[in-house]
């Protein structure tokens, strides 16, 4: 007995009460996963804030080395992709398959554009020797940090003891944070793009329709979390020095 429509041949699994039950259970699982994502990035944000308060000069000079223009372009790209992802889900709900495919494809293109801008940013940093740890090779950056710290010490009304030797040693730390945080985020963008490609192919094959679009919704949630993290990452790294 076939009660599903011709467009999508969907029956809910036997251990669920109904299709709605299966949908909400799957979505709840995705939300639990999203919480672990938030907590993982949250740990990095806490570490960033701790070291920013301990070694403010390093972070102030470090953020001035980032290209705000490229960061802003990337923010617009990600916001637009979030919008097109939401529309991809919307047209799957409305059973307009070709429109859904177009908007999901635009989302993938946005992800690729984001990674392209990231590639230019990263290659510029690596070219300047602004990389984490022992590979760091930019004496000019260290000198700027030292200058800024001594200047701050001289002008600050409150008496602050700044350990110049410690600052020199800790200077590459900023790029440790920069590469780990944006790198982990970029990794999520790549995985998200692959997942969107997967649901686009499934949409094209006609697996989804108004009664079953759970994978699109789940991938959409993941993609919006990627956008959400960038919304916080962008001002913290690029703007708040």
């Amino acid at each position: 007995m076939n009660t599903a429509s011709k467009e999508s041949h969907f029956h809910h699994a036997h251990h669920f009460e109904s299709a709605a039950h299966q949908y909400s259970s799957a979505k709840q699982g995705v939300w639990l996963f999203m919480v672990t994502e938030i907590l993982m990035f949250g740990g990095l944000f806490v570490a960033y804030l701790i070291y920013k308060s301990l070694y403010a000069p390093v972070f102030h000079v470090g953020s001035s080395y980032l290209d705000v223009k490229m960061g802003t372009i990337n923010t617009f790209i990600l916001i637009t992709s979030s919008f097109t992802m939401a529309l991809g889900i919307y047209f799957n709900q409305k059973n307009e398959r070709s429109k859904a495919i177009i908007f999901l494809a635009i989302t993938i293109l946005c992800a690729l554009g984001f990674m392209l801008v990231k590639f230019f940013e990263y290659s510029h940093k690596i070219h300047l020797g602004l990389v984490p740890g022992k590979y760091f090779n930019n004496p000019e950056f260290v000198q700027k940090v030292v200058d800024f710290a001594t200047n701050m010490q001289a002008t600050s009304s409150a008496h602050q003891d700044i350990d110049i030797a410690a600052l020199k040693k800790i200077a590459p730390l900023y790029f440790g944070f920069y590469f780990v945080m944006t790198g982990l985020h970029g990794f999520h963008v790549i995985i998200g793009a692959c997942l969107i490609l997967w649901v686009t192919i499934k949409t094209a094959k006609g697996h989804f329709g108004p009664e079953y679009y759970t994978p699109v919704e789940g991938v959409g949630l993941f993609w919006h979390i990627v956008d959400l993290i960038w919304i916080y990452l962008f001002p913290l790294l690029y703007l708040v020095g």
Partner: protein
Amino acid sequence: MEEFVNYALYFIACVCVCVPLFGLGLAPGIIVNLEIAAILGSFYSQIVEKGLIKTLIKDKGDSPLIRPMVPALENVQSTIDSIENGTFGKKEEKESQEEHEHHIIPISVYAGVLGILILGTIITVGVAQIDFGPWNTVIAMLVATIKASFVLLYFMHLKYDNAMNRVIFGSGFFFLLILFSFSIIDIITRVKPLLGFTKF
């Protein structure tokens, strides 16, 4: 046993919330007294004497102090009754599932959210160019939080979602808050940090 575990968790949660406040030295005496009063009060009203609300409505329902609260108290009593009967939340959950299945947010709402997000980004970048000293960080984080809430509510459909998903997200956020507050207390008490609020 179950009740004991519940109250232990309640106590731990209270301590987690209040320790940052103790650390900052914000009225520790008042907080301690309130904490003890709240814990003793809830123990008394819910474990020792379960029918407290009923007797309160019956005996003092006419007094001007209690009368405005009677509808709210009756609501609480009916919730307690439904928990005891084991019917709590069963009907509502099913309804919200059905309701959600058919809810589709129109494109105009998505477009509006996109507009707000773009506007928020322009504001963030624009404000960063002007030097507001200590307020730059505050404004940037405030705008980011507003943007994030719009993404959560509309793009991620949390506004129309069932309560469980909202609770799941809220719990994640709550534990993040604990992590933040403990770390900041640690830093402030151990070393004198150069916070982003000082103007260079």
